[in-house]
């Protein structure tokens, strides 16, 4: 029965395709395809697969942006900034306040979030981490955990524990692709716009793939950020100072690099990225609570380790792969076990290749 709808060559391979739930009126649900949970090879169809893939890449791009901040701070300050995930949440709340309470346009909300988080990141570094430079890693780590808890509970104190509904900052409408199985890849038409298009008869029964504007923007922004960061680190004076500090703090200082300033700048950049990630994350998944940031934060660290800590392309690759793994395990295995699967990735990576996909081996010195 379903062969009628799946004359596309790729769709034919999988045979069955469920043509359902295409009507979407620009609401916040990310995708229209519905899947029954559980692993069912018969039910796997190519359009669902592509849908999940894109959703995974989009979530992965958010992880990648967070992981970039993690990896920079880890590479340069040699510390695991546990509070990084909570800066995401703070960024979300700042944007929420500016948009909803002050009723200002969304671009101002994004700018406000970035500025606030940058200052917050620098302040955290100055107050909590700088006095501990040279102390044992255990002390620094515990302080970072304390900071993470501090931010969560401050947000809890100010905004309360009820979830806030975040309005998307991306004004773009979702893009819909119509497949009818003929022509190049079967894509017959695409449509962007809030209202449902008036379809010609030929496309009445076509299959639709919807990609929301937030997803497209998220993916583009993360790629842009990665490229900008790489150029910044390779070409600019500050960027090279960062490289020098990450290589050897003492030697860098002797060569006239202001180590404290460099670390502060790293925290500023990392926190600004966290704000961007926070706004994008909340645009895609609109419930905002004081705990919004902690899981993505930890997962982004997993992504950074997965890609190779200290490596910028590594953070990107790790983030996107992790996003895909998470969405696929939610869709095809079990939504309850998705987190367990993501964390198993970390454990497997650390046991098999502790340096990650793109990381370098660092030998321990006496």
């Amino acid at each position, binding site marked *: 029965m379903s062969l009628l709808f799946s004359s596309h060559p790729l769709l034919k391979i999988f045979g069955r395709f469920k043509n359902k739930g295409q009507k979407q009126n620009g609401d916040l649900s990310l995708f229209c395809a519905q899947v029954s949970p559980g692993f069912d090879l018969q039910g796997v169809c190519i359009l669902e697969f592509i849908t999940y893939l894109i959703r995974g890449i989009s979530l992965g791009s958010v992880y990648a942006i967070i992981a970039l901040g993690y990896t920079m701070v880890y590479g340069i300050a040699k510390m695991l900034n546990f509070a990084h995930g909570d800066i995401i949440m703070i960024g979300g709340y700042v944007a929420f306040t500016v948009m909803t309470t002050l009723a200002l346009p969304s671009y101002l909300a994004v700018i406000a979030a970035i500025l606030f988080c940058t200052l917050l990141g620098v302040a955290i570094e100055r107050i909590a981490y700088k006095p501990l430079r040279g102390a044992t890693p255990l002390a620094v780590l515990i302080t970072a955990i304390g900071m993470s808890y501090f931010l969560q509970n401050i947000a809890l104190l100010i905004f309360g524990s009820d979830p806030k509904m975040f309005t998307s900052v991306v004004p773009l409408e979702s893009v819909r692709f119509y497949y009818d199985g003929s022509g190049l890849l079967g894509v017959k038409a695409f449509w962007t716009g809030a209202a449902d298009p008036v379809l010609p008869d030929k496309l009445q029964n076509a299959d639709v793939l919807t990609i929301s504007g937030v997803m497209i923007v998220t993916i583009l922004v993360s790629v842009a950020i990665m490229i900008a960061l790489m150029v910044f680190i390779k070409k600019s004076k500050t960027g090279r100072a960062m490289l020098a500090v990450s290589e050897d703090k003492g030697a860098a200082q002797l060569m006239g690099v202001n180590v404290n300033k460099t670390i502060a700048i790293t925290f500023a950049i990392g926190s600004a990225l966290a704000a961007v990630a926070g706004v994008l994350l909340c645009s895609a998944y609109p419930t905002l609570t004081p705990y919004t940031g902690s899981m993505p934060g930890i997962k982004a660290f997993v992504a950074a380790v997965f890609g190779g800590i200290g490596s910028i392309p590594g953070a990107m690759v790790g983030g996107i792969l992790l996003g895909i793994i998470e969405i696929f395990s939610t869709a095809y295995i079990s939504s309850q076990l998705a987190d367990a699967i993501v*964390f198993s990735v970390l454990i497997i990576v650390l046991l098999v290749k502790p340096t990650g996909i793109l990381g370098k081996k660092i030998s321990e010195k006496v």
Partner: protein
Amino acid sequence: MLKLNMKKTTRQSLVTYAIVIIAFVVFQLLSSFGALSNLIEGQLVNLCLYAILAVSLNLVVGISGELSLGHAGFMCIGAFTSAFFSKICTDTIGNDFLRFLIAMVIGTFFAALVGFLIAIPVLRLRGDYLAIVTLAFGQIIMTLINSMYVGIDKNGLHISFSSESALHLEPGTSPIINGSQGITGTPSIDSDYRFFVSILFLLLTLAVSYHFINSRTGRAVMSIRDNRIAAESVGLNVTKYKILTFTIASAFAGLAGAIFSHNIPTLVATTKNFGYDKSIMILVFVVLGGIGSVRGSMIAAALLTLLPELLRSLTFLPDGIRTFVSENRMLIYAVILIVVMIFSNSPRFVEIRARLKAFFRRGTKKEAV
């Protein structure tokens, strides 16, 4: 006179046991006079189990120098295995005390087993990686148990990770571990004895910890903490000692979990019970009590567990402060964590402290002359 002949370490441990016993006697007396509020009485068992958790985590963080953020995961294993045992043996073992004791042993054993299995791969990692991997393991354990359905009928054991109906149990049999609804109605000993038994387990934990720290093995572990490469070069097997410490700590976390599961009507693997927050809370006890100090961890755990109830009784404080403190406990813990860490570890403060110490020492010497 006796005191002079004792070793410093023995005296230390005896003082700690004495504190526990005195605290027990005081609480019992207050309770029998009816001077304790119901809230505090309800917390007495928790007091012991948090003290056990703090003392055992202290072995990993303080003695071994590794940060484990998955301690609540081992507690979760101990809780569920022991409660599972008690449930299936409700009819087979009639004696409450015997069943309870075997359940404690089973909880301890399985937590130790899982701790051992996890320690083998994980302890190859160091520092931050170890922290995040133990965190990951804690979350995995909790998630798995939370989505696990186990039941027993005459066809044997049924395990499923999807739903209760997937167990295909005989009609009329209900699952023992029912996914996110956990285990309900674990048979336990009479609630009047629970505090006494928990105190005994706390004393056992303290005795084992002190014995471990002051033994040759404990000194080896501490030397590895202080300088791994030097310890390795004098022939210490670093991995063996680390795994040993980690396993002992997980075993006691399991014991605490077993006590926990036999003290509540419904056991569920929620984040509140066994999540990352719980692990952090135990870490706060250890840090606040002084990393490496057994007695400190115990006292900090006890005080912070009683804090909300203590605050309620401190009537001289204004109401605003009392409600703020009890509602924002985690915020205050966080601040304490940061401040304690900065003051005890920042190179600048360490220097100031050393100078102060030297100053006072000089002062006393002059007096002596």
